[in-house]
């Protein structure tokens, strides 16, 4: 006989599992936490490397030098914006056209579900402006996007200035194989989402937007820029997007190589690169960065305009310029050069970014942990739940086997075998009746008997098919709820439907039930294995148990009525 089909061996196995379960759970939990913390250390973190062949190892020379033009354009933008109060659409159109782009606008509006905090209004409307730089010698099949989200609170004017200066520089080059779209959106993320939806011809957020007049092919990658000062001390990169989605790691690697090449100070989660990995500071900082990234992903918010691009499988990043108290500052030319280099390398792409990882964690900007290495941590934590469920199942099974064996010998003296024996027939009848009652209330009627069946032993439960087993877990806590009342074996009569707490009851008292279980169901403790009408819980225990008890009574009455009505629905079986 096999290990699981031999009852003796199965009982021994069950006892082993029960004995070891608590330490195993604790161990598994600790292992999960420890593994997660170990992710910050060198063997589990790897240095980032460029996976895409097309973006290879060669650097390109950057020639952007129009810092002054960027600054003057930024000042113009601020002035016009202050004058008009919203995005200066006409000025933007004029400037983009003078730079040499094909300019288009798009208007959008959205009724917000909650009023806007600052302005106390529901309706938000705006205009997006975008210019397309066509590739001089290639067909317009693919494109790259440089977007600057402008909101009412974030001015982002230096980003607009830099974007326009870059557009002028890019227009003079002949090596573009993809079109480049320079996008300025109003209302930050709302405008970006409106543009993306119109570009891909979908409507997932119920935004009303005018259709786009100009298109440029499939978008391969996008960079969102947020700069609010003329000089920056560091560039912060944000990768987490909507629902925690991440861009392909190659895009981050690309940014990091240009940071290194240009000597720029680049930060991740606002933290610098840990310098020394030998002492505890490095790993500690990387654990912090890791946890911050996990939390930001868990929040589900897109932490920049790039987060909305990811849903359309467009790899995107947000670069934020930070101006802090540091002495060494970089001007717009340095940022512009980094962007020029990135776009030039992205221009070399032949396919979408797909070579590197899509799921990863970043303990530092130049180090990553892939999903294969961080998933075991989550696995260990989930293993605790699995072990607990196994333990519950084993325990109930044990408890069921014990009383059944006791029940087989009628003359034995444990307190409730006669009633249990009598109960066998009653519930069985009742169960048949319930099943003939039809699918209308199979859950309630079948389930009403299940705890009873459960505690009478698994074999009887098995006779009634799979639908019984399915409800075991659901009704188990209910059984635990019942013994809370007085021990009244005589109150049970065969034929009476055993009232059990409904689902609400089970959710209301899982903890209590689970805590009660080890103490209640064990072989030889058949005193606890009774079911009775639920006594209304004590007044002080809260509204939910009261609600559960009331629900039980209501269900009981309903099922009585259903049983008495003659075969209203055809039986399932």
């Amino acid at each position: 006989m096999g290990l699981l089909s031999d009852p003796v061996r199965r009982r021994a196995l069950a006892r082993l599992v029960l004995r070891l379960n608590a330490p195993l759970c604790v161990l598994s939990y600790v292992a999960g936490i420890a593994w997660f913390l170990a992710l910050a250390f060198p063997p589990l973190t790897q240095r980032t490397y460029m996976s895409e062949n097309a973006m290879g190892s060669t650097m390109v020379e950057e020639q952007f030098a129009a810092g002054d033009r960027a600054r003057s354009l930024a000042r113009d933008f601020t002035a016009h914006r202050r004058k008009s109060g919203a995005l200066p659409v006409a000025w933007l159109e004029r400037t983009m056209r003078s730079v040499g782009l094909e300019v288009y606008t798009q208007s959008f509006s959205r009724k917000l579900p909650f009023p806007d905090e600052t302005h106390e209004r529901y309706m938000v409307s705006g205009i997006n402006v975008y210019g397309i730089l066509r590739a001089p010698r290639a067909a317009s099949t693919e494109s790259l996007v440089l977007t600057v989200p402008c909101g009412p609170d974030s001015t982002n004017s230096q980003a607009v200035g830099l974007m326009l200066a870059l557009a002028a520089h890019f227009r003079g080059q002949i090596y573009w194989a993809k079109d480049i779209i320079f996008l300025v959106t109003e209302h930050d993320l709302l405008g970006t989402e409106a543009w993306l939806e119109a570009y891909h011809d979908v409507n997932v957020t119920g935004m009303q937007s005018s259709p786009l007049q100009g298109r440029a092919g499939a978008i391969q990658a996008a960079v969102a820029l947020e700069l609010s000062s003329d000089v920056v001390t560091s560039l912060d990169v944000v990768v987490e997007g909507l629902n925690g989605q991440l861009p392909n790691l190659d895009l981050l690697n690309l940014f990091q190589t240009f940071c290194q090449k240009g000597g720029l100070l680049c930060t991740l989660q606002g933290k610098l690169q840990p310098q020394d990995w030998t002492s505890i500071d490095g790993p500690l900082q990387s654990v912090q960065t890791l946890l911050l990234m996990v939390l930001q992903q868990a929040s589900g918010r897109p932490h920049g305009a790039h987060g909305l691009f990811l849903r359309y499988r467009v790899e995107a990043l947000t670069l934020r310029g930070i101006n802090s108290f540091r002495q060494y500052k970089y001007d717009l030319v340095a940022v512009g050069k980094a962007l020029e280099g990135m776009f030039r390398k992205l221009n070399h792409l032949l396919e979408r970014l797909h070579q590197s990882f899509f799921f990863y964690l970043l303990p530092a900007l130049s180090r990553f942990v892939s999903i294969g290495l961080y998933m075991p941590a989550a696995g260990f934590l989930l293993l605790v739940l699995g072990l607990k469920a196994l333990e519950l199942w084993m325990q109930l099974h044990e408890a069921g086997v014990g009383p059944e064996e006791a029940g087989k010998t009628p003359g034995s003296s444990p307190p409730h075998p006669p009633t249990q024996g009598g109960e066998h027939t009653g519930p069985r009848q009742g169960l048949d009746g319930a099943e003939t009652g039809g699918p209308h209330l199979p859950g309630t009627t079948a389930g009403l008997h299940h705890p009873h069946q459960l505690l009478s032993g698994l074999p009887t439960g098995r006779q009634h098919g799979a639908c019984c087993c399915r409800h075991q877990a659901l009704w188990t806590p209910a059984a635990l709820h019942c013994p809370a009342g007085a021990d009244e074996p005589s109150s049970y009569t065969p034929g009476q439907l055993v009232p059990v707490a409904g689902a609400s009851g089970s959710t209301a008292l899982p903890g209590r039930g689970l805590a009660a279980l080890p103490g209640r169901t064990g072989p030889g403790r058949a005193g606890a294995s009774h079911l009775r009408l639920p006594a209304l819980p004590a007044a002080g225990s809260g509204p939910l148990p009261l609600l559960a008890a009331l629900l039980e009574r209501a269900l009981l009455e309903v099922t009585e009525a259903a049983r008495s009505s003659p075969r209203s629905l055809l039986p399932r079986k």
Partner: protein
Amino acid sequence: MVDTCFLSQGLTTLAGLLLLPFGSLAASQIEDQAEQFFRSGHTNNWAVLVCTSRFWFNYRHVANTLSVYRSVKRLGIPDSHIVLMLADDMACNPRNPKPATVYSHKNMELNVYGDDVEVDYRSYEVTVENFLRVLTGRIPSSTPRSKRLLSDDRSNILIYMTGHGGNGFLKFQDSEEITNIELADAFEQMWQKRRYNELLFIIDTCQGASMYERFYSPNIMALASSQVGEDSLSHQPDPAVGVHLMDRYTFYVLEFLEEINPASQTNMNDLFQVCPKSLCVSTPGHRTDLFQRDPKNVLITDFFGSVRKVEITTETLSLQPDSGVIESSYKKDQMVEELMEPLKYAEQLPVAQIIHQGIFLNQGPNPCLSNLLCLLP
């Protein structure tokens, strides 16, 4: 008196003895000259240059092939004898910041694309099947002449291949590959069809030596840029263009070939020394066991150039006047004066006659018919 006679005899024998080595030296010089003249048995040169990889980041493979093409053309092989196969167009790629150029040295020192490049197989035509058909000559009759390798048993052929490769194979266009066994069999077919006199095979890929280890036909010499298990590395990145321009091995071969001119006597042993491990990082290899001549007697221009041998002779040749010829021409002049018939145009293409005579083909060669045959390709 007897003493003087004896002395003179001794002197003559001594003189004879002394002059003997000089005589043999003179004889060996003539032998050397004769040997030099008949050093190689070839009368024409062909080159098949293949680049097998596409995409912008494989710029260097196209540059490799074009630099060998440039050297081969400079040393005398005409375009009609070169089959150039390039799997992608780098010069006109939209990503090329200097359109219509392909550079081999950074800072745009050397444009190997030039003004008069003739690419025979381009883009998607570079496949394993087309390459093997070119080598073996099994080509559909509609193929233009520039795409054929019309070599004979007195041709020396240079075959240069570059791209991405591995142990025993070379990748064509990211979708198929040619194995070393196929290549060896193709060369054997060429040998059996007497399509080459001698063959020089050069390959610049990773693990290139694996491609020549299966050759079994005679008169083949092979060079490779790296041994099995080694990678061939690229040479210089150019930040203005944004890609690596050349592979190391071919870069140094190009520098070596730039110093060769059609008259140079550099031999194959010097080519074997090009690109030692210190410069190339990989170990170039070569194979000469199938080759019948000693590599030190093989000139570089035997394969890379097309050298016409000129023999200056000091003999005189007297031309006898042929009396028969003179008399018949004299007679013809007289006949023209006598005839004075009305002149008419001769029929340009006597089709009716040809059709008639075609039926009686087995009656012997007909000059008109044989003329028609010459017109057929």
